């Protein structure tokens, strides 16, 4: 999932895939604006076949947070 997430991230910001880590913060480190971020989650919903809860979005800061949350939804 991490690889797919990196690919998705590349749709919004021009960042080298190798520089994206699980600890990368979407806004502070990767340069997302707040709407980029929710759009990425919308795309992730389609790709991974999950339904993200709006209230949870506020708790997702890093790439690792997003992956862990989506994996929890899939389980």
């Amino acid at each position: 999932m991490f690889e797919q997430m990196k690919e998705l991230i590349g749709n919004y910001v021009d960042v080298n895939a190798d520089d994206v880590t699980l600890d990368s913060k979407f806004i502070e480190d990767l340069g997302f604006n707040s709407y980029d971020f929710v759009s990425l989650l919308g795309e992730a919903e389609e790709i991974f076949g999950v339904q993200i809860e709006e209230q949870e979005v506020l708790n997702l800061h890093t790439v690792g947070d997003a992956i862990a949350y989506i994996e929890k939804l899939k389980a």
Partner: protein
Amino acid sequence: MNKASVKTLQDLVRLSAEEYGEKTFVREKDGNDISDKSFAQFYEDSRRVCSFVQNAANGETIHAAVIGPTSYAYLAAYFGTVIGGNTIVPIDAQLACADICELLVRADISIFFYDIRYTPMIPAIKAACPSIHTYVSLQSGEGAELSLPSVLEKYSPAEMTEIPEKTMASIVYTSGTTGKSKGVMLSHANFIDNAMCRDNESSPEDTLLTVLPIHHVYCFSCDILLSLRYGATICVNDSMMRIAQNLKLFQPTIILLVPMIAETIYKQIMAAAKAKQLPPAAVAQAVFGGRLKGIYSGGAYLSPELMKAYAELGIPVAQGYGMTECSPRIASSYLDDVSKGDVGTVVGGCEVKIEDGEIVVKSPSVMIGYYKDPEATAEALTPDGWLHTGDLGYVDEDRRVFITGRKKNLIILSNGENVSPEEIENKFAAVDIAAEVLVYAEDGFITAEIFPNAEACAEMSSEEIGEAFKKIITDINKTLTSAKMIRRLRIRDKEFEKTTSKKIKREQPEKGEMSIRL
């Protein structure tokens, strides 16, 4: 619709039912299905809610509040309140519980309509707002004492009696980049004037996807009221996460956006074009669902670069200008006459003059005043009805409006010279290594504080970033008179704090590190 016969929101919703009848007014997701509600149904349901409100109010005129994302139920609660002569107060859905309570108390609310997701907040609201005697959940479900679906089932449509057009229809709290929010009182006449201030903007063939927050007048007037006037269908975007999915699902012909959303969608289009090796214009049509005629942008400044980028994709972006106090439109553009650096042409019925550089307007759209705030009202409105917009700018001979900055943000230097920080901030629009810029005076020096763009600066050390900005500022200073030149630079490692409408707050709790005295 015959404009002359529309004086109130009650007239608008009644005439839309008469003219457009069984045509779909609101289309929204309902679980895995799509639910369509007609103009006729909407008028009937609004009158059912009206019966309920009148009954709960015991014959008195009351203020009701409504909170939640856009939905058919939200709109029925809104119109059900106002068509009976009562006042609706839409609350920002992103506020914290304490802030919601503060507004409910300040606005003297007695009936509260809430989206069911706010149910956990209700005990705290009950404790803080003793004046609210009736709580209605917009959806039925667990924990709801009373719900809108049960109201619609139980109450018959009210018989409509005419209401005076000057009746206060709504109190709208402005988010504001500085200070406490103010309650803008808007009458039926204000809303109707603004909905009628231009012609031929839409038609019954149009489908809109409504994505903006419904408590803002921009969304309410331009998405909802214009659809009622022209008979267009409104599709509800159920989440900010799902705009891309909903564009494909609902295939709108028109969409109203704020610049930030337009920017993200543009990035998605370009990324998809690159990945699929397809022409961006073809991808753009697909992304927007295949039927889009154009985008209307408002709420913040849209850069000419982005407008041009969309034009290259074959999508016109028309910019408008307004403020809550003016219901909201002051200027707007048509899709076939998009702006060239201006924010649109002054709308019909609106007079504009410039006083000390400030745009001052007078029109039937201008608010009654601020609720329970005569001092703020006197500051904004002259006794003969001119509204001080607080915006600096000018109007050309074709009545096109140009904005140069905010009056209250003006930096007044010790030599008496006035400097508009926005004018300097806009010079950074094309600087790709700057994500956000705020300009202010510090110790009498003009200071630019910058949050760098992480991706563009990925390969640079902090010294290199400082040097790069120093060079950029030297170039920008060459375009400024000496009084306006940037003398200090601060670089910060955190995004600036924003208002809920995503504007940078001018008062920031902490400053970035001083990098360079120029």
